[in-house]
């Protein structure tokens, strides 16, 4: 009998074309593009007189640069405009599916793949973007690449890579009912550290993981990169199949049954060995918030900011001192005492319909604090339409949120949406790096529910910190 294999091994080996000491040559099933990391790749291809090998395995959207203001969609500058025109030109020239700014199919690339049914179990998926990890939620090997590799995939539909090591991260126990997938992700990164996953693909396992919706799994896998891993995966199960059924690009008719049978066979075999196995007990885990400048620097909402001395290694102590200085925070104060200026709900981590619904449930019948600027940015145009059909846009607007158009928005601060210098933001995005949300911005990563509660109170708070609503119409 063949020896037991992991989900990761099965996918990797099924796409393996050649194996040499200098790496494995693997086939890529889907190549996704944003506008910022691909122009130079297309240009390189053209200069060498090469062709796009498989345009029918490519899909592109504009997300990083696009403004999200409601009334007038205008680009913030000419260089961004040129970048978008380049993308449009190359996609046209090579016959690539493309969703330009303001089009009805536009959205964040990692939101579009799944919602169109392009992301399926067992596939290899790449994009010139580190959060390609998101697609791993379907049981796909999906990871970010650099621009030279984008060019390599365009020309050959393959990549030569050292085979990643495998890691199993099993979540055990029962988290607090307020904890979301985002809180699980922050807890995992806090445990592994920002480089605990380096060189690895992580399979997230355990009942807690499989109880998550597809949206929740995408949030979790999206942030695997913040622990240094190439990607995170969840084995496909009934939840995955139910999500994929009837999606635009999912297999149809007899192919559906064939595909599902194959997808079922991908699960890690009992007894399969990982290079690294860890278990994290998430019993009682409550909403989390970051206080520093990397996603591992987090504590539960309501707790105190740690002191540099509380860390074991010198490098962690130094990192804490640097982080507290950038964030202008004192150790020992409660995170709940940090005044929040901006609240951002959106991004490929938490900009899906389920995220917006969860935040809207918290906001319904409540008002954003007058000191807070709050904005909500749906992850795609179709999510925006769906939310409007459900009346969720009204809940946000009535509460005092700006209801905006899809894009990366304040996740990356290169499209006009920024946090003012020195101000603190509560953000559902994935990176609290220095200046990520704009020069001098001080970011605290949270879940959509925590972001909503924070908007209401003007300080970091979880939904259970909110006073009950007395108004009659409140739910």
């Amino acid at each position, binding site marked *: 009998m063949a020896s037991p294999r992991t989900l990761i091994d099965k996918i990797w080996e099924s796409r393996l074309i050649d194996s040499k000491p200098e790496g494995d040559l693997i*086939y890529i099933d889907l190549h996704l593009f944003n506008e910022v*990391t691909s122009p130079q790749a297309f240009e390189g291809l053209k200069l060498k007189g090469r062709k796009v090998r498989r345009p029918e395995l490519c899909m592109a959207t504009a997300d990083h640069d696009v403004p999200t203001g409601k009334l007038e969609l205008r680009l913030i500058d000419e260089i961004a405009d040129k970048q978008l025109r380049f993308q449009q030109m190359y996609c046209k020239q090579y*016959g690539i599916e493309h969703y330009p700014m303001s089009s009805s199919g536009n959205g964040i690339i990692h939101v579009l793949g799944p919602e169109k049914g392009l992301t399926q179990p067992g596939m290899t998926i790449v994009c010139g973007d580190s959060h390609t990890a998101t697609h791993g939620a379907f049981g796909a090997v999906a990871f970010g690449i650099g621009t030279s590799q984008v060019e390599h995939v365009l020309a050959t539909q393959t990549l030569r890579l050292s085979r990643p090591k495998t890691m199993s991260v099993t979540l055990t126990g029962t988290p607090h009912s307020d904890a979301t997938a985002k809180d699980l992700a922050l807890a995992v990164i806090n445990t592994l550290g920002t480089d605990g996953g380096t060189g690895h693909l992580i399979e997230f396992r355990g009942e807690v993981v499989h109880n998550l919706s597809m949206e929740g799994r995408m949030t979790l896998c999206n942030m695997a990169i913040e622990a240094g891993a190439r990607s995170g995966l969840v084995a496909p199960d009934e939840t995955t199949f139910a999500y994929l059924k009837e999606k635009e690009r999912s297999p149809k008719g007899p192919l559906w049954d064939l*595909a599902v049978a194959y997808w079922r066979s991908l699960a890690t075999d009992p007894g399969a060995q990982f290079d690294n196995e860890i278990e994290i007990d998430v019993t009682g885990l409550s909403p989390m918030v970051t206080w520093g400048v990397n996603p591992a620097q987090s504590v539960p909402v309501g707790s105190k900011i740690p002191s540099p001395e509380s860390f074991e290694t010198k490098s962690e102590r130094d990192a804490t001192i640097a982080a507290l200085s950038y964030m202008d925070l004192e150790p020992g104060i409660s995170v709940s005492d940090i005044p929040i200026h901006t609240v951002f709900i959106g991004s490929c981590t938490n900009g899906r319909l389920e995220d917006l619904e969860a935040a809207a449930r918290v906001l319904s019948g409540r008002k954003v604090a007058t000191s807070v600027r709050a904005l909500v940015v749906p992850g795609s145009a179709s999510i925006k339409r769906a939310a409007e059909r459900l009346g969720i846009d009204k809940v946000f607007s009535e509460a005092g949120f700006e209801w905006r158009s899809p894009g990366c928005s304040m996740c990356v601060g290169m499209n006009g949406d920024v946090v003012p210098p020195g101000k603190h933001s509560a953000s559902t995005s994935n990176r609290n790096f220095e200046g990520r949300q704009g020069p001098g911005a001080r970011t605290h990563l949270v879940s959509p529910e925590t972001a909503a509660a924070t908007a209401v109170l003007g300080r970091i708070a979880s939904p259970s910190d909110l006073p009950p609503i007395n108004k009659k119409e409140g739910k």
Partner: protein
Amino acid sequence: MEAKSIIKGSAYPIRRSNIDTDQILPAKWMKRVERTGYENGLFEIWREDSSFIFNDPMRSQASIIVAGENFGCGSSRQHAVWALRDFGIKAVISSSIADIHRGNLPQEGVLPVELDQDVVELIMAATEANPKVEIEIDVTNRTVTCREAGVFATPFRIDNASHFNLIHGYDPIDVTLTFNKSIEQHESSRDPWLPKCGPEFV
């Protein structure tokens, strides 16, 4: 790309872990469509601080970065490597370089050099103490020497694929295209349900 055998130079020691690519090159630089001209963006925000090591006039000739662990984490932007290259950086030494960045560096001929933390510490201390200290990296044999740090021909880690292309100066695409037969063979047996894209879906 030119084949690499020896890299020699003085250093910018940056005693800091988790230096992410947003710090190496801020996002606003990613709006450009060119492949060159990124040198002014390198550590743009940190360079505003006159005490930042890149502003040390004694180090104006330095070409090697010595940094804390997890260098280049975060965004996949290869623009960060274009900035390093355009500024004249030839190698980055750290106990760990984040996966995507480690793959991006050699694409532009910048050598990723991973050493054990205690060796990095020796080199860091020596180069902090004296801006003129030289580091010599034997790319072919994968070793680092820094006499003042007491480091002699210490082996470093580098991915085999990156090493192979660097020492030969190969274009990875050309190498892969020699496998065209095998790629075609794989393509002829792909699962029939795998999704397709195209302008017709828009």
